[in-house]
């Protein structure tokens, strides 16, 4: 572990909550206050599959290019303030990502900056061999066996834990690029590195897991997506979350002074309840955290202290995230003005289905969708949510299925309603809806001893 003197407090921020989050989050975090580590999450479930496809067309692609743009923008501040960066931007091609980052570092004229790659998560090429060794890869949600979709699998990645990240930091990396890993691992990694936590420090690893879960969706714990939204000040400049961690495992959630939003017990609890299953068993490859064990308390303005986190030993398996080709879909929309907006929109939808049927294309109920956006789509069937006659509605329709041609046949029947349907039909910008691929998600388990995480450090 780290040979240098351990710090009392370590500041770890998350500046990217998901693929597509604002670049202003991380840019402001490195500019607006003190920071030791900046973590960035770029990978959603379907992202790996999209990246595999990009890589198959162009072998130098397949990673989060947004990350390279960000490094180009903030590198001088990272160097000046010695902020370390941990990002799962590597996708399915972490070495291409590392090469692009090294190129940016060269362009800025810095020498001696260490960039690490954590890999070993990508098992797409090993599935058959692993199955031959007895791994079943049954779908964790449905119990189905993998052969159902085996020939359509487009990506397969293990959720690696935090220890390889800590190892990269131990080797002096300033920038750590990973492929698939757990979101909390981005935060636990630097804690292991700084405080020398070991694999059987279950309560401390669990505390890191809770900290990582709180910050993993960026501003969702600092007042974003908050029930009492009127209470949230200056949302435009909302502060991204920072963990002020201590060696013994307690931590404070905070944000930089002068930024918008808020850190309160309620704002943090909102995020703790997000994407939660059984709160007693929050499983990561590094351990199992008990989300019913800890105490939250306000510790001054925009500071929430978390103490008493308990955890248990890790399970013997890694979670594997696979994606597979699962058919095609197309959706499109038109805006229908009043008078009689809803009635006319309903007529329009019927016209589209009827015209498609005239031409021999019929879609089963589970293969088609109609929504009248503005006339209660999100809370359909909920008492108290019914609107009065809206002054306009958005007609949103879609179809899906295994036959690409059939799905594509739908789009050309939507726009003609402008001239061949009821009056007040508009908003058709964007062209004909086209079939896009549906990417199925297949979660499974894999014995840990069959996976070998690897860490390699490169110097600019």
């Amino acid at each position, binding site marked *: 572990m780290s040979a240098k003197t351990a710090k009392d407090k370590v500041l770890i921020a998350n500046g990217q909550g998901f693929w597509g989050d604002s670049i202003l989050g991380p840019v402001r975090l490195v500019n607006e206050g003190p920071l030791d580590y900046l973590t960035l999450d770029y990978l959603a*479930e*379907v992202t790996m599959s999209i990246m595999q496809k990009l890589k198959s067309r162009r072998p130098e692609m397949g990673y989060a290019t947004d990350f390279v743009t960000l490094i180009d923008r903030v590198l001088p501040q990272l160097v000046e303030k010695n902020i370390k960066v941990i990002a799962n931007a590597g996708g399915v091609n972490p070495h291409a990502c590392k090469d692009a980052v090294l190129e940016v570092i060269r362009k800025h004229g810095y020498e001696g900056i260490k960039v690490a790659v954590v890999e070993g998560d990508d098992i797409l090429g090993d599935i058959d061999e692993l199955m031959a060794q007895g791994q079943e890869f049954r779908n964790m*949600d449905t119990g189905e066996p993998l052969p159902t979709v085996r020939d359509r699998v487009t990506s397969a990645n293990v959720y690696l834990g935090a220890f390889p990240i800590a190892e990269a930091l131990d080797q002096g990396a300033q920038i750590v690029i990973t492929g698939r890993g757990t979101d909390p691992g981005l935060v636990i990694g630097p804690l292991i590195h700084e405080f020398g936590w070991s694999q059987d420090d279950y309560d401390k690893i669990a505390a890191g897991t809770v900290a990582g879960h709180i910050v993993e969706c960026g501003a*969702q714990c600092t007042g974003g*997506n*908050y*029930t*009492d939204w009127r209470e949230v000040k200056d949302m435009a400049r909302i502060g991204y979350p920072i963990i002020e961690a201590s060696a013994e495992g307690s931590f404070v959630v905070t944000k930089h002074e002068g930024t918008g939003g808020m850190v309160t017990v*309620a704002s943090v*609890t*909102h*995020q*703790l*309840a*997000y*994407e*939660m*299953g*059984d*709160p*007693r068993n929050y499983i990561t490859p590094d351990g199992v955290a008990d*989300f*019913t*064990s*800890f*105490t*939250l308390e306000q510790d001054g303005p925009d500071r929430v202290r978390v103490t008493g986190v308990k955890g248990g030993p890790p399970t013997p398996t890694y979670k594997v995230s696979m994606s597979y080709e*699962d*058919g095609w*879909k197309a*959706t499109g929309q038109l805006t229908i003005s009043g008078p009689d907006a809803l009635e006319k929109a309903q007529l329009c939808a019927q016209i589209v289905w009827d015209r498609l049927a005239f031409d021999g294309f019929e879609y089963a109920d589970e293969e*088609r*969708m109609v*929504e009248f*956006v503005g006339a209660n*789509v*999100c*809370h*359909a*069937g*909920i*008492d*108290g*949510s019914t609107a009065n006659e809206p002054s306009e509605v958005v007609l*949103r329709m*879609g*179809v*899906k299925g295994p036959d690409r041609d059939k799905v594509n046949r739908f789009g050309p029947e939507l726009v003609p309603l402008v001239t061949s349907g009821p009056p007040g039909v508009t908003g058709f910008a964007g062209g004909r809806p086209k079939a896009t691929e*549906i*990417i*199925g*998600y297949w*979660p499974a388990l894999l014995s840990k001893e069959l996976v070998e995480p690897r860490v390699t450090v490169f110097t600019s």
Partner: protein
Amino acid sequence: MTKTSIAAIAAARSGDKGEGSNVGILARSDQAYAFLKQHLTADVVREHMHAINNGGVKRFEADNMRVLNFLLEDSLGGGGSASLKTDAQGKTHGLAVLRLELDIPDDVLRSVKGN
């Protein structure tokens, strides 16, 4: 006793969880939590969300945070990239549950600041 939406005594956060969604209901006071723990059962939520959720509903409790966590098992129209729905990730399901009206005792309502 007042029949009113539970938004008066609770907040919510929701998101996707496989082919379903999770809805965390955050009680605004200890009394509100005790009341919701007794009356906001998995069955009540399943009935309220019947037009959105085609599957079962499971409830978990986290007393330390005054949170009831509901898993709606089939509420996303297929889930992930297969869904044709506007709210394919269940982002608005928390607010949908908060629209539920219950007979809430006055002392429970009063226990929440601002009521």
